[in-house]
């Protein structure tokens, strides 16, 4: 079908963009590693301490590192009008948002996923905690991408520098962190917590396209 061809075309363009800007991605991951180092040295590099609070610190730093990619989610495409052209090419704004979230998940969050076991080694985490971390991040990064999409689209509307976007990402990722970190201490309820995470991911996958598309339409009106 024609729409499938267009979806592949859009994803191919996104992949080309990410590849041409790969330094950006690597510097984000490097930022994440450096912030982990800062935390380790701030806490005194004590092995037992790191093991007990490691997962929580890793999650908080993942969150903050992901807000780095907030700015370039929609801004370039919006500024030079490509968003409008893609819309006129036959894809509704909601579809564009879903594809953007998916490509962000694929090209940005998966590299972070790969670097998680390495960070786990720095914190001397036991292997089952690393496994839990990777699994919860796999689902949680989808939620993070949805939140980043919502905040980036709200940032489009703001010509002043009030970063409402970062506030939104942090605010709604509090339940995500509660469940992802709590999963380590709740061995009996493992399945239920995973299901809860998947449920939250599905809720946000429903909310994000609608609200991001609404904000994009609003921003195009008031360019």
């Amino acid at each position: 079908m024609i729409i499938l061809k267009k979806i592949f075309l859009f994803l191919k363009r996104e992949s080309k963009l990410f590849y041409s800007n790969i330094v950006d991605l690597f510097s984000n991951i490097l930022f994440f590693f450096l912030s982990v180092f800062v935390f380790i040295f701030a806490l005194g590099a004590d092995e037992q301490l790191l093991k007990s609070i490691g997962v929580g610190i890793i999650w908080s730093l993942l969150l903050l590192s992901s807000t780095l990619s907030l700015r370039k989610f929609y801004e370039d495409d919006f500024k030079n009008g490509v968003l409008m052209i893609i819309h006129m090419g036959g894809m509704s704004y909601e579809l564009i948002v879903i594809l953007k979230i998916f490509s962000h998940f694929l090209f940005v969050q998966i590299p972070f996923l790969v670097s998680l076991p390495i960070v786990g080694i720095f914190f001397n985490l036991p292997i089952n905690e690393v496994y839990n971390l990777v699994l919860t991040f796999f689902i949680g990064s989808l939620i993070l991408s949805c939140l980043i999409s919502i905040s980036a689209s709200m940032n489009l509307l703001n010509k002043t520098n009030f970063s409402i976007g970062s506030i939104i990402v942090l605010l709604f990722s509090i339940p995500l962190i509660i469940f992802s970190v709590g999963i380590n201490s709740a061995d009996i309820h493992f399945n239920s917590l995973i299901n809860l995470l998947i449920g939250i991911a599905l809720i946000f996958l429903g909310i994000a396209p609608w609200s991001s598309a609404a904000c994009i339409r609003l921003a195009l009106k008031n360019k």
Partner: protein
Amino acid sequence: MLLINNLSFFRNDIKIFENLNLSLANNQIIQIKGTNGSGKTTFLEVLLNILEPKSGEIFWKGKNIKKNIFDFYNQTTFIMDQNTSTRKLTVLDNINFWRGLSSSKLSNDEVFILLKTLKIEKYYDTKVMYLSSGETKKLELLRLILEQKKLWILDEPYNHLDDVSIEILNQTFIDHINNNGMIIFVSHFNPTISNLEILDFN
């Protein structure tokens, strides 16, 4: 085929334009003129359903465009004031993207001939950010022929173009008109095209 009926648009309760009636049929070309800030670009945005009019309807082939906007978009090419080419990708990448988006049936050879006509064929593998502003504008105008759509809507197409390119653009317009096409464009510049109708926005 394009019928605009009693269109009016207010921004923050200030009247931009009111009681605008326009009809455009095959083989017709209309230029929109006016002083800076008289609402020409706003009119294009209302026409393309980016902005909501206060009153009035726009009909394409007899149907209200709000009922099925993608039918209207499917037969329209919109060239804005900004350059919508992705600066970090090459010229060829951008062309392939536009081709696929509009399901154009142009072959690679024909694309190359087009690049040659506009004298930018040596850039086909360079990133757009290395082109000058005039050459980027020429790439943008390439979209008109790539997408093979019926209605062309352009906002200030003659900016940044050298004399040769202005002539090529005029010829392209005339060819499109003779092939049952329709063109609406906003410009300060007065091109020498016969049968040009003018809508003055003062």
